[in-house]
């Protein structure tokens, strides 16, 4: 009997990095060559984006309410209760909104993409597509990654707006402020350097979520438990990437704008 070949852990890790780099370039090659699957892209925007609306909306609303409730005692103690809308606005738009929505999307989208493609791999649908002469990268991967890249920034914008609205209701639990005055304060504090970097980083969040979900699904093993592993691994890796991208984005933003 032949001796068992044991591949060292570092070699497997390097192979995985190589696979991911290959997958990354394969995505761009397929993006710019061959036909673009518009119908699949629109379907994925609906499945991935529209169907996440409720979750993002509820979470953002609660986030706005809770942030005001948490901030208020300290702000009142410092005699700065009137600064509550501005404080919420800056913290929500610059940092908390994009990261929380990114994490929620990582949980919902990366897991669903990882599980769907992993299940297609297990049931030989990916192989069937490939042997039929169709290109699974072009049909399955490109539309999904583009859909998450497009939808995560939109969901973040919407989440920010709902979060700020939640903040307005929360402020009015203890104090009284008109809708117009509240949003004048919210908008007046924000400028280009708050808004643009936050939007740009959510584009990278979306790309990372789609890429990780697709990669994990495509490279899952052939067994039913692999579907769960692919989904779980996609969520963990995508969430980690959200924080890594955020840390890098904050550094770049502080160098460029502050």
């Amino acid at each position, binding site marked *: 009997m*032949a*001796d*068992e*070949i044991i591949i060292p852990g570092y070699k497997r890790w390097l192979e995985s990095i190589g696979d991911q780099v290959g997958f990354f370039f394969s995505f761009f090659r397929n993006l710019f060559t061959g036909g673009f699957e518009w119908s699949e892209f629109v379907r994925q925007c609906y499945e991935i984006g529209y169907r996440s609306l409720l979750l993002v909306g509820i979470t953002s609303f609660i986030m706005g309410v809770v942030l005001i409730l948490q901030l208020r005692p300290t702000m009142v103690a410092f005699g700065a209760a009137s600064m509550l809308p501005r404080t919420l606005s800056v913290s929500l738009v610059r940092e908390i909104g994009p990261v929380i929505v990114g994490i929620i999307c990582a949980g919902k989208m990366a897991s669903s993409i990882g599980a*769907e493609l992993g299940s*297609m791999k297990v*049931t*030989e*649908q990916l*192989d*069937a*597509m*490939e*042997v*039929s*002469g*169709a*290109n699974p990268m072009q*049909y399955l991967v490109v539309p999904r990654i583009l859909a998450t890249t497009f939808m995560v920034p939109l969901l973040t914008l919407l989440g920010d707006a709902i979060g700020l609205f939640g903040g307005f209701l929360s402020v009015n639990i203890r104090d009284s402020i008109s809708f117009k005055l509240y949003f004048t304060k919210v908008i007046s504090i924000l400028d280009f350097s708050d808004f643009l970097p936050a939007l740009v980083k959510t584009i990278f969040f979306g790309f990372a979520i789609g890429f990780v979900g697709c990669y994990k699904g495509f490279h899952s093993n052939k067994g039913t438990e692999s579907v769960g592993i692919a989904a779980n691994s996609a969520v963990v890796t995508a969430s980690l990437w959200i924080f890594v991208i955020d840390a890098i984005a904050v550094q770049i933003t502080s160098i460029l704008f502050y």
Partner: protein
Amino acid sequence: MTTTAIDKPEKKATATASGEAVIAIKGLSKAFGSNHVLKNINLELRKGENVVVLGRSGTGKSVTIQCIVGLLKPDEGSVKVFGEEVSDMDEKELKDLRIRIGFLFQSGALYDSMTVRENMEFPLTRVLKIKDQAEIDKRVQSVLESVGLADAIEKMPSDLSGGMRKRAGLARTLIVDPEIMLYDEPTTGLDPITSREISELIISIQKKNKTSSIIITHDMECARIASDRVLIMDDGEYVAEGTFDALHQSKDKTVASYFNQS
């Protein structure tokens, strides 16, 4: 291992050569880590011929046909399809080759997010790039009628029985008029009546479309109905070859063990 009724594959392939070889495999070896799945395999498939490959699970039957369509790369040896070496093909050549080969997976491998109609349309619109909807509808209707699934056109794969899923999978491969059909355990998991229907369908497809086929199976009834020639595979090698009847009468222990189970 061999008996008078059974020749070594290489000898038999030469001896039975009557038409043009559409698939020629020579010295094919494939290993996954320390597991040597295929060891020096030789196989020829002639035009219009149905070859059945019998063997226990894990003996490398499916790996052989996956090497033919380029899903797996051989470690050693040559796999030529229509005279062209598969491992030397670039992406476009491989795509063109795959259009000429139909591959029926064990599960049918229907795209489960699409209806039966959309499954049929997929290779037409994405691979053959047919734009004319009337032409697409005509082909879909015709192929579904040929496998007896015209009524299931709007159903989702999850609403189909195992046999219907296999027939739908078969229809999807047939819709592009392949010249070679590769069947990976087409009757596994089906009841005897449905298995027989699928086996007879394979024969009728071969007669109608003049396809050449390799059929991987454990099902002796399928082998009896569908085979022109049977190869028996054991531990990554072909151990016997002949017609179904010749092998059935074999006194060889390994060969007899397959036929005595039925």
